[in-house]
């Protein structure tokens, strides 16, 4: 009895979110406005409350790691595969056996051991200024190290995980040595030292700072869909080129999720994951951020359909996570800021 009272006092008002039934706790690197509406719908359908903390990927991972087995988080959502791989490496995730997930998510977009799952995908193609470059001149990422592109390419800093993953995919395809040679040549072709985000690269190409830009597709989609007339006009001056169509395909990445190792609401977390790959959710989830659904058979939005179909690199995204530290070092050596 005394023990119970002591415990009650201990827990008292301090306690973090309780582990009550009917809840699922999410740490998400995906921005609130891109998931909250879906969570609300999930709650409506199932009665399960979704508690949410958003933040930067790495920081959330660190919090998860330090909280260890006492973490309240059941589900970790990130905006790229590299971080999910890192979480798995740090033994923060657990395998999930779910027929629904295995059926609805293509194999290369989830972990071979079912530790994490891709939920939407995006490509990182080449954007070219329509008035300066003929698409016939373009072929592969590898070709961008050719001196003919000297001073013509815009890309953001190597601090960015999307660039680290892109280089990770090249290490997977060509090996570290060739990737280093490529990076050395590629950096020499920069029109300016890396600055700004992906949208800034597209705008720079539109404004004539450079002829080519590398950016994620959803930024391009958002520029076209947004209500900023300047950005729209800028986006309309460039077009997408899908590189490496003759070999491995264009580099893609995912936003995805993993059930945490310490999940106390494991079943609810899996329910939420399964809900996120249902047709309706997939459609909304992808459309909200101008991304591609992962589930085969669910059509992307009209705008994305207009960009045409392309062959995507089918390397398992785990590979990219494995190559990440190597990629950072290669970029440092190449002087990619």
């Amino acid at each position, binding site marked *: 009895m005394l023990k119970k009272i002591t415990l009650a006092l201990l827990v008292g008002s301090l306690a973090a979110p309780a582990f009550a039934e009917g809840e699922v706790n999410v740490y998400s690197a995906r921005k609130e406005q891109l998931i909250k509406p879906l969570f609300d719908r999930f709650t409506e359908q199932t009665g399960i409350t979704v508690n949410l903390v958003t933040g930067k990927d790495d920081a959330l991972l660190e919090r998860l790691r330090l909280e260890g087995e006492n973490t309240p988080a059941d589900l970790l959502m990130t905006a790229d595969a590299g971080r999910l791989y890192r979480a798995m490496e740090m033994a923060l995730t657990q395998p999930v056996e779910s027929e629904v997930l295995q059926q609805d998510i293509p194999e290369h977009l989830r972990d071979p051991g079912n530790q994490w799952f891709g939920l939407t995908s995006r490509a990182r193609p080449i954007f070219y200024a329509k008035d300066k470059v003929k698409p016939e001149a373009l072929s592969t990422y590898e070709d961008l190290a050719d001196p003919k592109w000297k001073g013509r390419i815009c890309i953001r800093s190597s601090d960015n995980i999307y660039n680290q993953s892109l280089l990770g995919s090249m290490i997977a395809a060509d090996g570290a040595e060739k990737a280093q040679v490529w990076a050395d040549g590629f950096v020499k072709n920069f029109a300016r030292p890396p600055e700004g985000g992906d949208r800034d690269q597209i705008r720079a190409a539109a404004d004539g700072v450079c002829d080519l830009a590398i950016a994620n597709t959803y930024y391009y989609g958002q520029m076209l869909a947004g209500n900023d007339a300047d950005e729209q006009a800028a986006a309309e001056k460039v077009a997408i080129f899908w590189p490496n169509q003759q070999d491995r395909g264009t580099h893609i990445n995912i936003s995805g999720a993993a059930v945490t190792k310490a999940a106390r609401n494991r079943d609810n977390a899996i329910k939420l994951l399964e809900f996120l790959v249902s047709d309706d959710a997939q459609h909304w989830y992808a459309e909200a951020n101008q991304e591609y659904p992962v589930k085969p058979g669910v059509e992307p939005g009209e705008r994305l359909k207009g960009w045409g179909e392309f062959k995507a690199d089918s390397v398992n995204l785990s590979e990219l996570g494995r190559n990440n530290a190597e990629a950072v070092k290669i970029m*440092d050596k190449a002087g990619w800021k």
Partner: protein
Amino acid sequence: MEIKSALWRAVLIGMALFTALPILAVFGYVFVPAPAVWQHLIQTVLPDYLLNTALLTLGVGVGVLLLGLPAAWLNSMCRFPGQQLFEWALLLPLAMPAYIIAYTYTGMLDFSGPVQSLLRDATGWGYGDYYFPNIRSLGGAILMLALVLFPYVYLLARAAFLEQSVCVLEVSRTLGCNPWQSFFQVALPLARPAIITGLSLALMETLADFGTVQYFGVTTFTTGIFRTWFGLGDHAAASQLAALLLGFVFMLILLERWSRRRARYHHTSSRYSRLPRHQLHGGQALAAVLVCALPLLLGFVIPVGQLLYWSLTTAAEGLNPAFFKLVSHSLLLAGLAALSALLLALVLGYGKRVRNDPLVNLTARIAAMGYAIPGTVIAVGVLIPFAWTDTQLNLLTRAWFDTRIGLLLSGTLFTVLFAYNVRFLAVSLQTVEAGLGKIKPTVDNAGRSLGLNALGVLYRLHLPLMKGTLLTALLLVFVDVLKELPATLILRPFNFNTLAVRTYELASDERLADAGLPALMIVAAGIVPVILLSRSIGKSRAGAHRKPVRQKEARETRKANEQINPAEYSHRLR
């Protein structure tokens, strides 16, 4: 008495150590060898980190002095058109987070922004046909940081100028100094502790800045620590980088101490009189207006204009109940953090004064270093000991009660508030110490000899004497917490967002226009405390609020005071 004194010492050291815990936790990694990563760093990026950090610090240091000092002097000593407005308005840039001013100027001055587009439309130039300074550069980062950090120097320098006894200045003039000499030889050296405090606050904030330099693609120590900790996944090398950064800070502090050596800066005279303001005319007045208007325009008016413009385009969807919840969360956190940081600073600052114990001084100094450490590092440092405690607690409860209680500390508001205290203790501590430093030790002695104990001296003499200082400390932390981002982002509980978090989410999604409204709200919420701040300083000037008409009244109060209590009388005299 002996036991009590030992207890006091233990409490002081304990409090300082507890606050220093996150810093110590991160530096626990310092002794883990990481030769491979270091070799890589030295060969590739470290020279850049060093050079950029040094240039950034130097540039911001010069910038804040150039912007802050002349304005502070003019606003203390002279009268010119608009002076009463500038007096408080020059503090407004404090309400503007550095990363937000960076967003706004980038939006305006970028190649694709309105300024350059207009220029191209007007002249028909294209890319490469003309030179335009790139805002996303080291120079740009220096400018942005100097524009929002100069008020620290302005604020503290002006407070110091105002509190200077006018007799000293008059004496210097009668001894043959011209106004310039009297400024450089008397006023400036006397204000030195305050100016250094302001400068060091600005520089520490510069060293801890992540948002601005990262946005501009300038590689500094801070971005390097992030890249090493997260990108290379090497905690040891990252914390060694952080230690190097702190070593740098420590060296600066020591250098300043050494250069001061035995000099002390108490005012020896307490006979204050009203300072006659010098009326400026013509060209002089115009120059003074320019000196004050330029930093205000660049550091506040223009960026706020841009934010307003962005907000207007999105206000229709943006202003909803959820938004006001963000506002209340931000205010709540800032208020609580300001209060607790002030209390902590009072205890530590006064403890240092009373005891002058080397160990107390050292631990307090370490605890106050959090200001120069990036928020993310602090957050990780907070998590390490807290999560450890939680784990131990859970082991205990499992052994005793066969149940888990989950996280008691991590993921609560307490954690967030604690992190703010670690991060911003320097602000309140330095302000409180500066305030205490201006009170002559004879006041303590008089109080003690009249039978007050140490706490009594603090409560009955020091607190009333430094009301202005306390308010300053409170408001500075309040505004700082409003702007704080990285620690809040990592540590906050479920379903709890603040204005800074929302601004970051939108801006990092490259939706600058949508970020305008919450950013503007941060600034707006910071304005009120900033104005209060300015008022409290205006009043602190010796003789400033004592108009001639009231002299008779004052004489009467004084007479009444003499009959009550000589100890209290000594401060009421002010």
